[in-house]
Each structure stands twice: as structure tokens, then as C-alpha cells.
């Protein structure tokens, strides 16, 4: 069980609480008995101090919490004359004294004071007491932290308080933490074997590594009674099975998430490369332009419509589509049109274009990363059970990627433009003969692919650094996805992206991130040797041309 040093957040907690106390009229009357308890902290010897801390905890008064926090942080001193307990804080470089309970300013620390020392054992006691004291706090996050603290340093006398708190608890997540703490308390500090056995059984329902450590410690402890040992081992086995399952699900989710990112980056390429046969090395730069569009739109919202800031993404998506699409049409009309049938030259020219676009963005926006903020509905995580949480931005990206590919499939299948597009792809001259303006279809198709790349940039700006090199990181992966899935086949792209993503995430814990990537690259290279036309190859004579 690791003991953490007081973090900044923990120190902030008491200050906020203290402020609340200062403005609350109740404290004036309530602190009478507490005052004497607090003074007892100045006692000599750790045993006496422990007793004082326990008495404070037993009072169940939340006002005692900041005092204990201060004690834990080493800020509690006593004035040598009269042994009055004070809290000492630095203020403008000089030390100042405060009343530990009311927080009133007692002026600069001129008189001789002595720090109230604590040892590790006392520190543990204080932590447990603090946890118990803050269990009834009005803020759910404080209550949750308190329940966690009790779980980490369980003490038998917190049990009644914890049960009282659980009975009142309305927040499910906090109640979950409290039940875990109660189970841990029963297991470690229960008075008879039955209570402890019940605790061991109950703990098996909380799949998280800390619980596993606790159960393992009980199971391996020589002093544990045999029945409890068996129960702990049984719980441990069940827990390990659940944890394995959870990590499997977590891996799967991360794989799908990576796959959806790859999918977003590759869909546009599946159109320009897969359907039109154009190698567009500047595809990654379309993604990058989309990400920068998101940045610009967000800045504009912040300046002109700060109230609507959370909805800037809704504007950024069509804006990025337009930016990418217009750039795409310009590229097709300006460069690629002249190079049809010369794929190697297309590759070189678009590579040159990607260099120019990167440098252009670097000149305009600077070489450093730009900060694109997550809107509130995309930050945080969806917690399924303990130890299993999916972050919202990843979930939204998966949803977005699926929506894009569905919309695109519908467009290809059911609209006039999709029909024209397929006609030109399958037989350009025949399409021209029946009156389709193939030049325009080319330009629009390329614009569509680039526009989708722009939208991918919106999504990637939420999880990746927005820098001029953003697109470079995705271009090789995207090509691999398209080639792996089968050129000219959107479903192939979907399957290719998801399988590459999942394979990558399952290899990662075993081989490390870099080696996993190399293995995937080699595997795809070998795969292309075997099936040069990808997973879902188009069949028929048209493919051979």
C-alpha cells in the first residue's frame, strides 16, 4: 500500500474548506469542544498525539479535517509559551500564524514556536482519520477521495462512520468506493472470522489492482486463519479472471479506437487512391489543414462568441471539409489532372506539394504545436466499472469515423454523384460517351476525398498535437490500411483499419510500442506479397488496367 506525499490538490482542499468555514456562522458555536481537542495535539509523545487525533476523528466534525491536514503537511506548530496550537503559513516571504480551526490571522510568527512532529505510524492514523472525517463532506469528489483514503489505510473505528455515510450516499460512484472500503475494512479489521470472510467475498466484486494486492497480502499472511486464507485465494482467483477480462476489453477498445483513427485518416485516401488510382502524398497535409482549421475556428469562437465555445467543433467539421475539399479540387485541377496514367510522377508532384503545404503552415502558424482544447462533452471518461474506463474523446472519434464511412457508402450507392463517380472509375470513356462530364467528376471526387481528410483532421486535433508535421505521421499508415484492405473497396478499408489497429494494441503490451509498429509493418509487407491486391480484392477485368 503506497503512501503518497501530500499533493498540491490535497493542500488546496483544506484551504477551500477553511474559507468555507470562515464564512459559515455555524462554526463559531460548534468549535467549543473541538478547540480543546485540538489543543491536545500539542501533547508530548506520539501516543498522546495519537489519542488526540483519534479523539478528533471520533468527534465526526468536518471542521477538524483542515487541522489534521495541516498536521499532516507539517504546518501545525505550538507556541512554546502556553502551548497554544497554531498553523504557520508563509505569507509574503515571512511566517505568519493562524488559528488552526477558525483560520483567523494571529499576526506574524515572532514568538518562539515548535513544530508538532509526527512519525509514520501517526501519519497513517491521521490519514485514516481524515478519510473518515471527510466522508460526510457535501462535495462528492471529496467524499470519493475520503472513501479511497479509508480503503488505503483501513482502521476499524472508521467502519460505523463509513456505514453511516453509505446509508446517506446518493452518488453511485461514491457509494461504490464506500462499499469497497467497507469490504476492505471488514476483511482486514473485522472482529470475528465471519465478518472477515464476508469482506473477502465482497471484495472479489471490485476488479482493481489495489484490491488484488490487498487480497494477495491477506492470502500470503502466515497469521491468517485457514478458512480466511482459502476465501481470499478464491476471491483472488475470481478477481484475476475479471481483471484479465477487463484488460482484454480495454485492449480491444484501444485497438478499435486506434483503428477508427486510422480509418478516418485512410477513408479519404481510399477514395483518391482506391477509387481514382491517384497517389496523393499530400493527403496527410489535408488532414493537417483540417486540424489547423479546427484551431482557427476555435480561436474565432473564443474571440467573438465565447458563450458558444463548446460548439465550435460543430462548425469546425464542415469548415474543415470545405477547406480540405477546396484545396483538393485546386490540386486536382492544377497538378494531378496533367499526370493521369503516370502514378509515379503523381507521387512525386504531390510529395512536393506536401512539403510546400507544411512549410506554408509553419510560416503562418509557427513551428510549435497549437493548442486545440477538448470541449467539455469530449473530456473525461465513461467509467463502466472500477478499473474500466473509456475516454469520451475516443468514443466520439469511433462514432464519428463510423458515421463518416456510413455516409460515404450511402453517397456512393444512392446519389447521382456516387453513380457518376463509379461510372467514371469503371470505364472512363464509356461514361463520357453517355454524357458524364468525367473531368468534373474527377475534380469533385478528389475534393470529396480531401474534404474527408480535412474532417479527419478535426478528430485528430482532439487527440494529437496540432503541428505542421501532423499529417506525416499518418500517411504511411493510411497507405498501408488502404493497400491492406483492398484498393477501391470502402469496407476493405474499414476492416483493414480496425484489424491493424487492434493487432497493434494487442502486440503493444507484449512487444512494446515501437516493435509492435515494426511487426505490423513487416506483417503487412508480407501480406501484400501474398495478396498484392489486398484483403478484399476487386474481381474482374477492370482491375487489370
Amino acid at each position, binding site marked *: 500500500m503506497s503512501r503518497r506525499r501530500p499533493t498540491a490538490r490535497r493542500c488546496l482542499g483544506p484551504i477551500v474548506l477553511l474559507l468555507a468555514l470562515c464564512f459559515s456562522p455555524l462554526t463559531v458555536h460548534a468549535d467549543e469542544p473541538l478547540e480543546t481537542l485540538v489543543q491536545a495535539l500539542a501533547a508530548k509523545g506520539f501516543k498522546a498525539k495519537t489519542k488526540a487525533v483519534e479523539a478528533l476523528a471520533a468527534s465526526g466534525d468536518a471542521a477538524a479535517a483542515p487541522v489534521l491536514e495541516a498536521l499532516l503537511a507539517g504546518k501545525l506548530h505550538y507556541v512554546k509559551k502556553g502551548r497554544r496550537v497554531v498553523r504557520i503559513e508563509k505569507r509574503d516571504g515571512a511566517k505568519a500564524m493562524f488559528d488552526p480551526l477558525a483560520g483567523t490571522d494571529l499576526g506574524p510568527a515572532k514568538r518562539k514556536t515548535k513544530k508538532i512532529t509526527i512519525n509514520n505510524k501517526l501519519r497513517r492514523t491521521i490519514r485514516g482519520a481524515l478519510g473518515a472525517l471527510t466522508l460526510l463532506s457535501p462535495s462528492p469528489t471529496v467524499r470519493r477521495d475520503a472513501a479511497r483514503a479509508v480503503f488505503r489505510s483501513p482502521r476499524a473505528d472508521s467502519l460505523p462512520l463509513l456505514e453511516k455515510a453509505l446509508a446517506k450516499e446518493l452518488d453511485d460512484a461514491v457509494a461504490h468506493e464506500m462499499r469497497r472500503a467497507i469490504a476492505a475494512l471488514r476483511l482486514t479489521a473485522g472482529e470475528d472470522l465471519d465478518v472477515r470472510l464476508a469482506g473477502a467475498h465482497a471484495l472479489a466484486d471490485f476488479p482493481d489492482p489495489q484490491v488484488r494486492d490487498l487480497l494477495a497480502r491477506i492470502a500470503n499472511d502466515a497469521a491468517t486463519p485457514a478458512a480466511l486464507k482459502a476465501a481470499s485465494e478464491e476471491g483472488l482467483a475470481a478477481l484475476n479472471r475479471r481483471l484479465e477480462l477487463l484488460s482484454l476489453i480495454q485492449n480491444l477498445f484501444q485497438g478499435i479506437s486506434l483503428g477508427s483513427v486510422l480509418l478516418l485518416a485512410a477513408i479519404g485516401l481510399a477514395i483518391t487512391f482506391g477509387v481514382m488510382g491517384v497517389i496523393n502524398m499530400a493527403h496527410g497535409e489535408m488532414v493537417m489543414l483540417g486540424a489547423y482549421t479546427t484551431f482557427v475556428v476555435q480561436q474565432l469562437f473564443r474571440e467573438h462568441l465565447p458563450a458558444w465555445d463548446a460548439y465550435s467543433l460543430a462548425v469546425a467539421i464542415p469548415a474543415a471539409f470545405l477547406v480540405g475539399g477546396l484545396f483538393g479540387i485546386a490540386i486536382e485541377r492544377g497538378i494531378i489532372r496533367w499526370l493521369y496514367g503516370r502514378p509515379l510522377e503523381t*507521387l*512525386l508532384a504531390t510529395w512536393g506539394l506536401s512539403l510546400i503545404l507544411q512549410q506554408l503552415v509553419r510560416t503562418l502558424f509557427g513551428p510549435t504545436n497549437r493548442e486545440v482544447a477538448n470541449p467539455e462533452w469530449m473530456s473525461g471518461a465513461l467509467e463502466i466499472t472500477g478499473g474500466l474506463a473509456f475516454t469520451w474523446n475516443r468514443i466520439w472519434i469511433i462514432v464519428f469515423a463510423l458515421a463518416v464511412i456510413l455516409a460515404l457508402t450511402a453517397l456512393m450507392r444512392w446519389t447521382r454523384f456516387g453513380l457518376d463517380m463509379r461510372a467514371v472509375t469503371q470505364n472512363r470513356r464509356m461514361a463520357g460517351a453517355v454524357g458524364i462530364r468525367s473531368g468534373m467528376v474527377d475534380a469533385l471526387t478528389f475534393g470529396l476525398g480531401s474534404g474527408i481528410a480535412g474532417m479527419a483532421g478535426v478528430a485528430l486535433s482532439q487527440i494529437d498535437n496540432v503541428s505542421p508535421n501532423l499529417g506525416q505521421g499518418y500517411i504511411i499508415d493510411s497507405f498501408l490500411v488502404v493497400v491492406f484492405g483492398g484498393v477501391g473497396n470502402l469496407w476493405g478499408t474499414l476492416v483493414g483499419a480496425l484489424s491493424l489497429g487492434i493487432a497493434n494494441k494487442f502486440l503493444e503490451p507484449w512487444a512494446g510500442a515501437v516493435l509492435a509498429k515494426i511487426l505490423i*509493418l513487416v506483417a503487412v509487407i508480407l501480406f501484400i506479397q501474398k495478396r498484392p491486391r489486398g484483403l478484399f480484392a476487386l474481381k474482374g477485368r477492370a482491375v487489370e488496367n
Partner: protein
Amino acid sequence: MFSRETVLFLIALGLATVLVPLANLALAPESVGHVPTYVVSLLGKYLCYALLAISVDLVWGFCGILSLGHGAFFALGGYVMGMHLMRGIGDRGVYGHPTLPDFMVFLDWKELPWYWHGLDMFPLAALLVFLVPGALAFTLGWFAFRSRVTGVYLSIITQAMTFALMLAFFRNDMGFGGNNGMTDFKELLGFDLQSDGMRNALYVASALALGFGYLLSRAITTSKLGRLLAGIRDAEARTRFLGYRVEHYKLFVFTVSAMLAGLAGALYVPQVGIINPSEFAPAISIEIVIWVAVGGRGTLWGAALGAFAINYAKTYFTGALPDAWLFVLGGLFIVSTLFLPKGIAGLLRAVAGRWPKPSARPALKPATAEAGDD
């Protein structure tokens, strides 16, 4: 074999080989014609690039294999040379360990990995400079050409290969110095690498290697084999149906080209004094292709010229206008593919009023217009 262009190129190269070291060593530093030592090294570096460009031209210009991974062969040759030079440091490293290079001491390794053994012997290192890139090219080509991976697919595979190698060489536990690569070289064959004499010697060696690479490529492309390669480039399926084992010829020329690239890398490393994984970056490999495209593919000497011209421009721009360089390079990619399909060589030939006679060299026809095999 010895056309007028070849003779002119060899004369120019020969003059440069003799005159530059002469101007560096024989003339006093303050005289007008003196060439400072750093310029000698810079020119030596360009000569290595020129050899690299010729190796790419050999496969791309004459056999239609657009390799976007030749930087990997170059870097592998460089790494072999770098390992030899590292072994040559001996106990003069920062940590003073008699056999282990500094970065291994730093990583707390106890003994040399097996693949570092024997590299202190120059003949073995010189052999491996050819063998390692050649073996990689042979393996990759064996799989790729046999399963008829051609055109753009092959380009993407070669690019993925160099990308994978870059990621691998960035890893510390590969034993190649990780991120930092290898540097701090002291001497080669017992001569101080910093001395003027050695720098001139490396320059001359690079020039000779370039001449060798040019003549070898020229010999291959003007032979009957060369005509077959052009046939593969222009109509692979047709050549196969005529009864030739297309993949064997492609494999041969691809491997030879990789070995030339490895040689270029091995000469490059002692002159610049460092080798690190960024040489494997896909962007560098693509840049090599543009040297060839700008110089004029399918001419060999044009490729060398392109390497010189672009790298001189790069040296100039990155010094004078660093922000403008990528605009220039990107512009070159677009302009040369759209408006200059024959490159500088084609321009020069047009200026000289002497288009190549079709009977003399069938290899000079640009091949990509046919959609047949791409």
C-alpha cells in the same frame, strides 16, 4: 558504352578528382585558387550523393522500379562504416573502454553484441558495406518481384521498409547507438580523419567510387541485359511472355543498385563524421528520387548532375533562407514532373541541339506514359 556524353562526364569527373585536392594542398591558403578543406569535404559529400542518385537512376530510369527506400541502403552502408570507425576509436572514447563503444558503456552493456565482432577489420567491413544492403535488397526484391508487386505498390513497400528500419534503429537496444547514432570517429586505416590529407583522400575515393558506379551502371544498361531491363520497364507483361524470367533481372539490378547505394553511404559517413537513424527517414529517400527526376532520369550523368545541383541549392538555401528551402524543394518536385519530364539532362541536350538518336539508345525513352504495367 563510351558515347560522347559518357566521355565528357568522365573527363569532368577526372578533372575534378585531380584539381580539387591539388587546389587544396598545393596552393597557399591566401591564394585565389585555393579550395578550403571544408569545401573539399562538402564536395566529397556531394560526390557520394551523386553515386546514390546514379544507383536510383539505374533501377528507376532503366528498369522502372521506383524505390522510395534507397536511403535505407545508403544508411546501412553508412552504419557498417560507422561501426568500423567506432571500433577504430578503441580506448580513446569518453569512457575509455578498450572494446565497447561509448554508448554501450553508457547503456551498461557488458560485452559486444555478436554482430559487432570482426568489424574492426577493414576488409570485412568493406565487404559488408556491399553485402548488408545487397542482402536486404535481395530479400525484399525476392519476395516483391516474385509475387509481381509492381509500380506504386512496390514504391509504398520500399517506403514502409525504410520507415520500419528507422523505427528499429531509433531503439537503443538494437545496439546501433539509438537516437544519437554514432559519431566522434577518430581514424580510418590509421589515418586521422580530421587531417587535410585524409579529407582529400576521402574526396578522391568518393570521386573514384562515383566513376566506378557510373561505368558499372553504364556497362549494365548498354549491354543486352540493359535492353532487357528497358523492355521490362516499358512492357513488363510482354517481356515475360517472350520467355524471360522478369523477376530475376529485376532482382539483379535492384541488388546491384542497393550495393552502390551502400558504397555511397560508407564513403559519406567518414566525411560528415556522423550517422544516425534520421538517414532512414522516408523523406530523405524521396528526396533522392527528386535529384534523379530533376537531373533527368535514364541518363545516369543527369542523375549525378541533379544530385549536385539540388544539394548545392540546399546548402545555399538552408544557410541563407532556411524558411524558403522547402518551398524550393517542393516546387522542384512539381515543376520537374509537370514541365521537365526529361530533367536538366533533357534541357542540355535540347540546347546542344542533339536529341538522342532512337537507334543509338532505346533506353532513353520515358516509359511511364504507357499504362500497361504501372
